[in-house]
């Protein structure tokens, strides 16, 4: 479904991504784990068109090349990105945020069904529809960011550090919702520093270090791999 090959990204003179190759198949949860600054966010931003890729890079989605597609056209193809730090529209209401999530939808008549889906997964958002998004708690903001992404009916969701800054109990809740979104048919590419949580729900995983993929395999295997344990799972 999504095939990233020979992806190189430079920020000025810094080589942020060095020949990254990642593949996500239809229906999978794939996770990309790694330390701060390893290039996880840059990978997702490159897929979404928010950063320029170096010549020779290729990102294919359902056979279509994305590297030359401008960022604002990507969501129309069925790719939805829940960015790092949530990036909800704080001064707008929860409802307006969800409406913006559906901005790229052509079939506006069926939105009622999408609100229903979002409220099933995130009942707390329904209670807060008229509230300013900036007044939500961190966990609720993460839920809003995910709900907003769901409103576009994505084929694939790119999720950047959904656990960031949240209490362990909320993280658990968020991850079980990610699993349920996946079960409803949405493919997921998940970027995480919380490797333990990510590996526990993923089908396959990639490990990225200073811009390079250093390991890949089944999540169930990587979680028991000595090197991964030592570097990312706290011993």
């Amino acid at each position: 479904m999504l095939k990233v090959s020979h992806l190189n990204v430079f920020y000025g003179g810094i080589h942020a991504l060095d020949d990254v190759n990642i593949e996500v198949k239809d229906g999978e949860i794939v996770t990309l784990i790694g330390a701060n600054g390893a290039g996880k966010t840059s990978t997702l931003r490159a897929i979404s068109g928010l950063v320029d890729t170096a010549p020779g890079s290729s990102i294919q989605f359902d056979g279509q090349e994305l590297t030359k597609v401008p960022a604002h056209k990507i969501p129309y193809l069925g790719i939805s990105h829940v960015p790092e730090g949530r990036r909800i529209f704080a001064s707008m209401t929860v409802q307006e945020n969800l409406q913006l999530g559906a901005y790229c939808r052509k079939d506006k008549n069926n939105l009622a069904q999408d609100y229903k889906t979002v409220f099933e997964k995130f009942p707390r958002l329904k209670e807060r529809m008229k509230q300013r998004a900036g007044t939500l708690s961190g966990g609720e903001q993460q839920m809003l960011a995910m709900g907003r992404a769901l409103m576009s009916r994505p084929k694939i969701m790119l999720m950047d550090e959904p656990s960031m800054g949240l209490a362990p109990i909320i993280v658990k809740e968020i991850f079980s919702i990610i699993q349920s979104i996946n079960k409803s048919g949405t493919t997921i590419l998940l970027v995480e520093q919380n490797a333990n949580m990510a590996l526990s729900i993923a089908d396959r995983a990639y490990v990225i270090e200073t811009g390079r993929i250093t390991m890949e395999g089944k999540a169930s295997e990587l979680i028991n791999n000595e090197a991964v344990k030592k570097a990312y799972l706290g011993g």
Partner: protein
Amino acid sequence: MTFVEFLQQLINGLSLGSVYALIALGYTMVYGIIGLINFAHCDIYMVGAYIGFFAATSLHLPFIPTLILAMAGAGIVGVLVERIAYRPLRKASNISLLITAMGVSLLLENGFNCIFGGDPRSYPHNILKQTNIELGPVHTDSLHLIILTTSLVLMVLLQIIIYRTKIGKAMRATSADKDAAALMGINVNATISATFAIGSALAGAAGVLVGILYNSIDPYMGIQPGIKAFTAAVFGGIGLIPGAFLGGLILGVIETFVTAWYSPLAGAIGFIILIIILIIKPSGLLGKKVSEKV
């Protein structure tokens, strides 16, 4: 000052203030969306006044078509300025953008001076009939009321565009977070162009209204009202649309009353207010420090 005089001055102040508000909206919208104090904005107002002048004199158009033509023309010039001068600097530092805006301002002023000459020109007298209107004991003239009404109609239209339409929602999202807006499928460049078009059209309308009211336009006519409108935008809270509206009206009223009380202060009052705001409440009347959770 009697109560009747007070009401008369209030109407004058509100109509002057509504013109400031029209210009201030453009400053605040552009600041809101790309973080630039667009120094060329006051010259877009001048361009609008000239387009209206030629529409009224060469084409002999009546008031409303003149206004619409000036708004369209000013809107196009605003979009071109953004496209040619500001967009290539989108990723440059704010100071480069600011200096560029000053350059564009000088170019427009002196370019118009070069092409059309510096002599003031007047709108035809018959474009709007100036009649005295008596509202009970209050005497005012139709021009002030037409200006006030036109400005209010345009500001209501703007509110509808911003809060009720898709492009308005895109503008608000883009001004809050460009990357996140792009992730929603919003074309950020097109949205910024639309913002310049709308802000510039409002300034163009103000140019025509002032051109008719004071019956004199020249290439440097934008400088004074530009500074006052900028003050109004800061006064209300730069980046906030209701702030520009409120700031403009209040500034117009204060200026009118101060001028009536002691006219030598007329030119200085705008700056005095600007200095006081910057000392007491730099975020403006409606501005507040926004803290966002991460």
